[in-house]
Structures are given as C-alpha cells and as structure tokens.
C-alpha cells in the first residue's frame, strides 16, 4: 500500500470520531429534555448549558474532520 492510499484510509478512519460526538450530543439533548420536563420554568438556563455541552461534545468530531481534511488535501 503506497502513501496516498494509506492517507485516504486514514482520512476515513479519522472521521470515526463522529460516533463519539453523536453519542455525546444524544446524551446531552436527552438529559436536557429530562431537565426541562422536571422544571419547565428554567428552560432558558438549560438551553444555554445545552448549547455549551453540545458544542464541547461536537468539537471531538470536528478534530477528526480537520485531521481527515489534512490527510485528504495534503
């Protein structure tokens, strides 16, 4: 296997980090819905925390994407 095909394979493997981000965002949004169901009056506060949590969980997927882009457009 030469270098360029190994890089393509690596680019594909790198975006597997999206799995973890998907699970993380799912947990964050599920727990947010639970929290809002318990205390509907505090919905505004939960939304802010939800956005932070989702952004932090998502950033791992973005790192994977950046790595795969670096491998693709070397």
């Amino acid at each position, binding site marked *: 296997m030469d270098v360029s095909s190994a890089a393509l394979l690596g680019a594909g493997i790198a975006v597997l980090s999206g799995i973890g981000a998907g699970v993380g965002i799912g947990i964050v949004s599920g727990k947010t819905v639970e929290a809002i169901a318990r205390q509907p009056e505090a919905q505004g506060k939960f939304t*802010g925390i939800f*956005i*932070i949590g989702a*952004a932090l969980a*998502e*950033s791992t997927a*973005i*790192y994977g*994407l*950046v790595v795969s*882009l670096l491998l693709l*457009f070397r």
Partner: protein
Amino acid sequence: MSEAVRETMTVSERITESIAVKTVFTIHAFGLEIAISDTVVMTWIVMAILIALSAAATRRMKMVPGRGQAALEAFVTFVYDFAEENIHHHGRKYAAFLGTVFLFLVTANVIPAFTPDGGFGFEPHFTIKPLTRDINVTAAFAAVTIVTVLVSKIRYKGVGGFFRSFVQPMPFMLPFNIMEYAIRPTSLALRLFGNMLGGYIIMLLVEAVMPLVLPPVVGLYFDFFDGLLQAVVFTYLSTVFIAEAIE
C-alpha cells in the same frame, strides 16, 4: 472559470479548487510583501456591510424610532441583557465586544448563501465563498477572545490574583491551568473552522451529486441554521470564558 472547464474537472478537483484560499493582490510596504487573500477582502466587505447598515439605521435618531432604529435598539438591548445575565457585574463593558463578534460571524457565515448560481448558459460574475473556510480568520477571532480573557482577568483580579489563579484550587492543577489557555483558543478556532468548512464541502458534494432540487433544501440547514448556530456557540463560549475569568 468557464462552464466547459468546470465540466471536465472531477468532483475532488472542484472541491480542492473551491476551498483553496487565493491571493488577490500583494501590498509592498516597509520592505515586506503582504499577501492579501480573498478571505481578507471578504472580511473588509462584511465590515463595510455592517458599518453601512448600522450607520443607515442610526442616522437621524429619533425618540420614537423608525423601523431600522427599532430593530437595532432591540438587538442592542438583547446583547446588554445577555451580557449582564452571564457576566453579572461588569457585563455591560463586554456587551459591545460580544455583540460585534456575533454580528460579524452571523454575517460572515450566512453571506455565502447569496452567491449567484451558474448553469443554463448563465455565468455568474462572482462567487461568494464562506470566509470562515480560512483557518486564519477563525484563529484571529479566537486570539482576540483569549487576549480579552487574559486582560480582563489581570484587570479585575490584579497581577498577583492572576498568577495565584494558576494554582487554584490545588497546586497540582498548574499544568492543566496553563494548558487551558492554549486549548481554549485552539478549540474555538477549530470548531468554527471545521464546522463551516465541513458544511461548505458537503454543500459542494450535494451540488455535484444532485444539482436540481436538493441544494436549496440542504442549504437551509448548512447555510443558514448551521452558520447562525456556530456564531451563537462562539459568542456563548466567549461569554462563559470571560465570566469565569472575572468572577
């Protein structure tokens, strides 16, 4: 690029061509060659749009506001309330910074949706590419944010309090606290860059696979919603970092 050349390129060549940052012109000053890329020019255009709209809305300000003035006043009030709610005491001082970042990022992320589309023999004179596809733009925003955090921490806690905060709550937290100042701007810059570039590439792929019905529908998410969401996330995280630094 003419339509004929476009047809002969493969999809991956077209994507590589589209996301490349090109140098528009070079400034020779102080013995240096400063290359001005197309993203820098787009930054100037976005700035010009924002300044022109704000100036037009606040020209001839009245006690009973007109339509533009009322919209701008509502936005300013919203940013003031948002900053005071999240940063508490000194929130109002940071409202201008946060509002500027938010308005700029929203405009910069949504403006590519207004690019004219080619096809059927029509050749657009210009294309608007997202300027956050250049990591230098997002890295500059992250650098400004982290400098704001550092300066406000020194200003409200003093130099001693700033250095003491590195060994709080425990002395062994020192390496993690130092690392935080490198990781936070990196993740801010990479998040915005990766999201916008990823969305742009997906839009290019969708246009290559099915150029007729699908792009406007998918574009609603990737051009409008995702751009707005990433601007909100960037501003919100900046607010959280500043609030944590000065509380």
